[in-house]
C-alpha cells in the first residue's frame, strides 16, 4: 500500500485542490483543500453525502468546472502532465483518452437526439484518425465488452430505445473506448435497479482490472466501497475528513462522521464490526443534515452534528495519521482498538 505514495508513477496527484464560487464578496468553497493520489490500476472510493462536494471534485479532475466556479491547486498532475495552468486544448487531449468520466444518471448522459453510433464514433475521432468503418468496429467491440449483445443493431438505436442499465453500459463503453489510465465514476449505479447495480459493479471491476485502468469511484454508499475499493476517502462539507485502506477505515473508523455513516449503512462490512459481534446491529442515523454551501460552520464542519465536539473544534483540525496510510481530520478521534 505504501507504493501509493510514490508520486512519480501516480495516475493522479493533486494537493490543495479547491473549487470556489465567488459570491457577494466572499468565496464559497464547494471543494476545500483536498489532496488525492491514485496509483495505476488502483480503485479509490470517494464517499460523501450529496452536497459534500464530491461531484464538484470529479468535474475539477477533468477540467469541467464552468465559470463562475474557480479551481486552484498546489499540485495537479494528471498522467504525468502538469495541469495547473492547462488550457482547454491541453485538457481536451487528456479528456476521453487518458481520463474518462461516467455520470450518475444514464437517462441524462447520452444526447437524446443523436444515435449511439454517432456518440461513440465522435469519441474515437476526437483522439484518433481512423476511418468511420474502423471506428464503428471499435464501437461495436466496446459494446460487446460491456456485455451488450447484438452490438451492431444497438449502434443504430437512439438512447430512448434502450433501458437505463443498457444506457449506463453504453456510457461505460464510451469511457473505455480509448483505454484511459483513469476513470472517474460519479455514482454510476445509484440510478439503477439493485440487481443491475451489482452486475455493472462487477463488470466495471473486472474491466478495469483487465486493462489496468485506475478508478475513482464516487458514491454515498459505503457498502459499494467495501466491495470495490482499495482505499477510501470520506468527504464532508468539501473536506476530506478521513482516508486510508478500505479495510482499516471500515473496521476502525477514526472520524465520528465515518462512524455515523457506517452505523446508518445496512450491511457495510458487518463482519468487521468487532464491538457489535454477536449482537443484532441496529441501524442509527446521524442527527441533523449536512450544511448547505454557504452555511458551513467555522472550524470542523461536522461539529454541530457531533456528540464529541468541544471548543477545540472551532478550529479546523489537520489531517493526522492514526496508523500508516490511515489519516483523520479530527481533534477527538474515536478510541482505537489497536495501537
Amino acid at each position, binding site marked *: 500500500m505504501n507504493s501509493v505514495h510514490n508520486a512519480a508513477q501516480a495516475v493522479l496527484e493533486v494537493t490543495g485542490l479547491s473549487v470556489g464560487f465567488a459570491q457577494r464578496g466572499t468565496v464559497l468553497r464547494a471543494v476545500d483543500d483536498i489532496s488525492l493520489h491514485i496509483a495505476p490500476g488502483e480503485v479509490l472510493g470517494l464517499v460523501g453525502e450529496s452536497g459534500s462536494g464530491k461531484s464538484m471534485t470529479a468535474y475539477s479532475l477533468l477540467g*469541467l468546472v464552468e465559470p463562475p466556479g474557480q479551481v486552484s491547486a498546489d499540485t495537479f498532475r494528471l498522467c504525468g502532465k502538469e495541469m495547473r495552468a492547462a488550457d482547454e486544448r491541453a485538457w481536451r487531449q*487528456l479528456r*476521453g483518452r487518458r481520463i474518462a*468520466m461516467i455520470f450518475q444518471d444514464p437517462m*441524462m*448522459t447520452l444526447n*437524446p437526439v*443523436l444515435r449511439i453510433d454517432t456518440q461513440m464514433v*465522435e469519441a474515437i475521432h476526437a483522439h484518433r484518425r481512423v476511418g468511420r468503418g474502423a471506428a464503428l468496429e471499435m464501437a461495436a467491440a466496446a459494446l460487446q465488452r460491456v456485455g451488450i449483445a447484438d452490438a451492431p443493431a444497438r449502434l443504430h438505436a437512439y438512447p430512448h430505445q434502450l433501458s437505463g442499465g443498457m444506457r449506463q453500459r453504453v456510457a461505460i463503453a464510451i469511457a473505455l473506448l480509448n483505454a484511459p489510465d483513469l476513470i472517474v465514476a460519479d455514482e454510476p449505479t445509484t440510478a439503477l435497479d439493485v440487481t443491475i447495480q451489482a452486475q455493472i459493479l462487477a463488470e466495471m471491476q473486472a474491466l478495469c482490472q483487465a486493462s489496468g485502468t485506475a478508478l475513482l469511484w464516487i458514491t454515498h454508499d459505503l457498502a459499494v466501497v467495501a466491495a470495490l475499493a482499495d482505499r477510501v476517502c470520506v468527504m464532508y462539507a468539501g473536506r476530506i475528513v478521513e482516508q486510508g485502506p478500505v479495510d482499516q477505515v471500515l473496521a476502525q473508523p477514526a472520524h465520528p462522521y465515518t462512524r455515523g455513516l457506517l452505523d446508518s449503512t445496512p450491511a457495510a462490512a458487518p463482519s468487521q464490526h468487532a464491538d457489535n459481534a454477536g449482537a443484532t446491529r441496529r441501524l442509527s442515523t446521524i442527527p441533523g443534515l449536512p450544511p448547505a454551501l454557504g452555511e458551513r460552520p467555522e472550524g470542523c464542519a461536522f461539529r454541530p452534528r457531533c456528540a464529541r465536539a468541544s471548543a477545540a473544534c472551532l478550529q479546523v483540525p489537520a489531517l493526522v495519521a492514526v496508523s500508516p496510510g490511515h489519516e483523520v481530520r479530527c481533534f477527538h478521534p474515536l478510541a482505537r482498538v489497536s495501537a
Partner: protein
Amino acid sequence: MPFFILRRCLQAVNVLVVMSLLVFAGVYAIGSPLDLLVDPQATTEDLARAAAALGLDQPVWVQYGRFLSRALGGDLGDSFIHGSPAIGLILARLPATLELAVVAMLIAVGLGVPLGLWAGLHPDTVGGRTIMAGSIVGFSLPTFWVGLMLIMVFSVQLGWLPAGGRGPTTELFGLPLSVLSVEGWRHLILPATNLALFKLALIIRLTRSGTREALQQDYVRFARAKGLSTGRVVGVHVLKNILIPVVTVVGMEFGSLVAFSVVTESIFAWPGMGKLLLDSITQLDRPVVLAYLLLIVLLYIVINLVVDLVYALLDPRVGRGGSGR
C-alpha cells in the same frame, strides 16, 4: 410513418370544416352588403332582386351549404366589389405576401439563431447582455411604428431605399418574385425587416434559453468529458437539441407572420393579400374576407403538418409509432 401522416391529414380536414363553419358564421354576421352595394334610392324590388342575385335571400344554412359545395370545387364566390372570383383576387396577391413573410422569417432565423446561441454561450459578457436587452426592446417595439420610422430614416432622411411599393418582379416558375433582382431587394428589404423584428426577438430569446438549458445538461458535460472540441459540442450536441423548439416556433409563428403582414403591407403599400383584406373588411366584401380567412386556416394546417413531420425527423422520440420500448 405513412399512418402518422394519414392521421394528421384527416385531422386537418376536420379542422378545416369546423373553421369554415365558424368563419362563415362570423362573416355572415358582418352587416348587410346590400346597404353598400345598392343605390340608397333603390326600391324594395330592386333590393330583393339584388339580394336574389347574390343569393342573400336564402336562409343562412342554405347559403352555407351552397358555399361549402362550391368551396369544394375551389369556388369561394365572387367579390361583391370587384365582381371577379374572390379566390382569384387573393391568389393573385398571395405570392407577394408569401415572399414577404418567407424573407422575414429567414431574416429572423438567420440572425436570431446565431445571436441567441452566442448570448446563451456567453451570458455574462457585455455582448450577451446587449443581445438580451436588444431582444427585450425588440419585443416592445410596436411593429407599425417601426415601419414608419424605417421609412423616415431610410427613405425620407437618407433617401437610400424606396418608401413603398413592390417594384419590378422577376418570374420564376410562373411566380413573380422580388428576390431575384437588386431593385426587387431594395423594395423588399424594409418591409421584410419590419415584419421580421418581433420574430427575431422571439427566436433570440428561445435560442438563448434553449442553449443555456442544454449547457447544464449532463449530456453536454459527458460530450466534453469525451474530449470533443467546443465546436462539436455546440454545433452538434447543443444545436441539434435547440433546433427542435426553434422549428416548432418557426412553424407556429409563420401563420401569424402572414396575418401581421396586413400591417406591414398597408404601411409599405406592398401589393399583398393583407392590404386586400383590410379594404375588403371596410367595404364589407364578404366573399373576399371569407376566402382570405379560409386560406389562412389552410395555410396553418399545412404548416402544422409540415412542422410535425420535420419534428419527427429531428426528434427521434416522437412520431415513430413503436419505439424500442
